């Protein structure tokens, strides 16, 4: 996080007078105590989940959940994977997440380019409308979207329900529409900060609008696109609401919505529930470890200079 390039570097020198610094030092001892206490509190739920998942049900029944006795193994993981059909859920998550993120970045970057590099009559109005749409609670749109998807027919060769319900399309479309607003806003701020001479020179050289977008502006937006892309992958992967509303068949649910069934399936087998939960953390954790810098940059993107 400290390497977040979008944020101004801090603490260039330490100009604070010596006595104050002494006080600051002493305070740091207390700071560490508070931070350690809070960090432990923050980690306990995660560690408890992992710990419960690693113990077979028979052992926890015998020794109790709050104990150290008995065997530890990965039995719960293989059982949870098979019984809950987690593999299918994960595939569905990929089917939904990848096109959504690509479409969102494509459409948002086109819109952002048009509103930030050219001035025309309603560009700011549209940008405001886009941003507003993203901030609405999704429940506001739930009933009409559900009805539209139910009553707009699709050929049976594309959708076995004959309409948009129970399809990946519905979830991809709505997720894309919902995310375009936010991404357009962030990207337009970013593009506005690029020097105008760049595209002007290209214009003089006879480059058309599409060439300016594709060959000049987009490559310069790579840091912002990487940050937004990472952020959006996590957002869409974590999205619960739209699949809940549009997809009835369990075999098409993405993992985040699918895990609502864990409790029903495993009743009170908390060891299996814990194993299932641990599985769903893994992809996020991998992305977090690999792309943490981009994710944090994405979250704070607009908040700094943009």
């Amino acid at each position, binding site marked *: *996080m400290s390497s977040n390039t979008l944020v101004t570097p801090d603490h260039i020198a330490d100009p604070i007078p010596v006595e104050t610094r002494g006080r600051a030092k002493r305070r740091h001892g207390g700071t560490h105590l508070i931070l350690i206490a809070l960090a432990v509190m923050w980690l306990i739920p995660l560690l408890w989940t992992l710990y419960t998942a690693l113990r077979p049900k028979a052992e926890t029944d015998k020794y109790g959940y709050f104990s150290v006795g008995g065997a530890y193994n990965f039995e719960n993981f293989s059982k949870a994977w098979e019984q809950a059909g987690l593999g299918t859920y994960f595939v569905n998550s990929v089917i939904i997440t990848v096109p959504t993120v690509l479409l969102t970045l494509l459409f948002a970057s086109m819109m952002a380019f048009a509103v930030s590099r050219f001035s025309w009559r309603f560009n700011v109005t549209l940008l405001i409308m886009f941003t507003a749409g993203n901030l609405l609670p999704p429940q506001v749109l739930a009933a009409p979207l559900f009805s539209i998807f139910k009553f707009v027919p699709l050929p049976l060769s594309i959708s076995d329900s004959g309409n948009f319900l129970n399809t990946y399309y519905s979830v991809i479309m709505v997720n894309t529409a919902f995310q375009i607003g936010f991404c357009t806003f962030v990207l337009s701020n970013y593009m506005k900060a690029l020097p105008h001479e760049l595209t002007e020179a290209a214009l003089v050289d006879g480059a058309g609008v599409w060439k300016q977008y594709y060959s000049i502006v987009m490559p310069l937006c790579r840091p912002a696109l990487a940050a937004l892309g990472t*952020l959006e992958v996590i957002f869409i992967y974590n999205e619960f609401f739209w699949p809940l509303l549009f997809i009835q068949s369990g075999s098409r649910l993405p993992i985040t919505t699918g895990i609502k069934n864990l409790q029903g399936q495993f009743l009170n087998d908390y060891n299996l529930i814990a194993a299932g939960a641990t599985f769903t953390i893994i992809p996020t954790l991998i992305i977090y470890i690999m792309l943490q810098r981009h994710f944090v940059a994405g979250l704070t993107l607009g908040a700094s200079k943009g």
Partner: protein
Amino acid sequence: MSTQVASPAAASRAKQPAPRRGGGSHKLSAGDKGVLAVMVGIPTLIQLILVWIPMVLSIALSFTKWNALALSDIKPAGLSNYDFVLNNYPPFWPAVEHNIIWLLFLAVVATPLGLFLAVLLDQNIRGSRFYQSVFFTPVMLSLPLIAIIWQLMYARNEGLINNVLGTANGPNAVDWFGDSSINLWAALIAATWRHAGYIMVLYLAGLKGIDPSLREAAAIDGASSGQTFFRVVFPSMRPINIVVVVITIIEALRAFDIVYIINRGTNGLELIGALVVQNLVGEGQVIGVGSALAVMLLVVSLVPITFYLARTFRRGD
């Protein structure tokens, strides 16, 4: 869905040089104008069909009676859905109360906790990165997953908390998510676990962006560190503060996922967002009632949204 609020977006236009609008549209060829029209047209059409029109339809549906079976069944109903929700729908007022509690809890506990974490971590202390990663991890997790993880903490006999309290497997075991007098607070703790880390990240960026000379000047003037923070540092983070206020309000209005996983938003966990879904999903769909609830949510949401947009886009461009 609460993650979506992420428009931590900016607000700080004032600092940007006004863009020079070179290449004014009069210089564009017809072909270029066509390309631009497509680049604007497609995203706008998507927004129109999937966001703006449904928003208007939501308002329209709230004045109808409909079970979602066939389009021809839609009957005008006047204000009867609103009348029903306000006067004859038992979960409504508890839900309003719970949404308000949710907002107050985030505003008084979770958001300040995030700010507190950011201030502690901004002091260049050893292990800062590790702590940041710890507090930030729940921000990466989905809200349903957070509900499940906390269910493992809260369960009567199997949960860690009852076991630590020594009440597990006994008559005094606390059913944290099941007991309607405490489950809202239990859910709020789970929500705080995530919210505080999110706010922390925003404020860490804000604190790093503060001109060090501000603190120097305050220190030279003999301000204590408390005074420096509250009188100098905090007010100078105004753009971030606005974003954080808006995010906190919108998160409270959107609150849904955690309670829906626990018990679909019933028995002490009623929230407006969950009531909307209860009326739309499953058998006995009551679209009109669900829409009336959605419209109330919309009207309230427009307050922070308008405030935010007015602030952000004020410097006319």
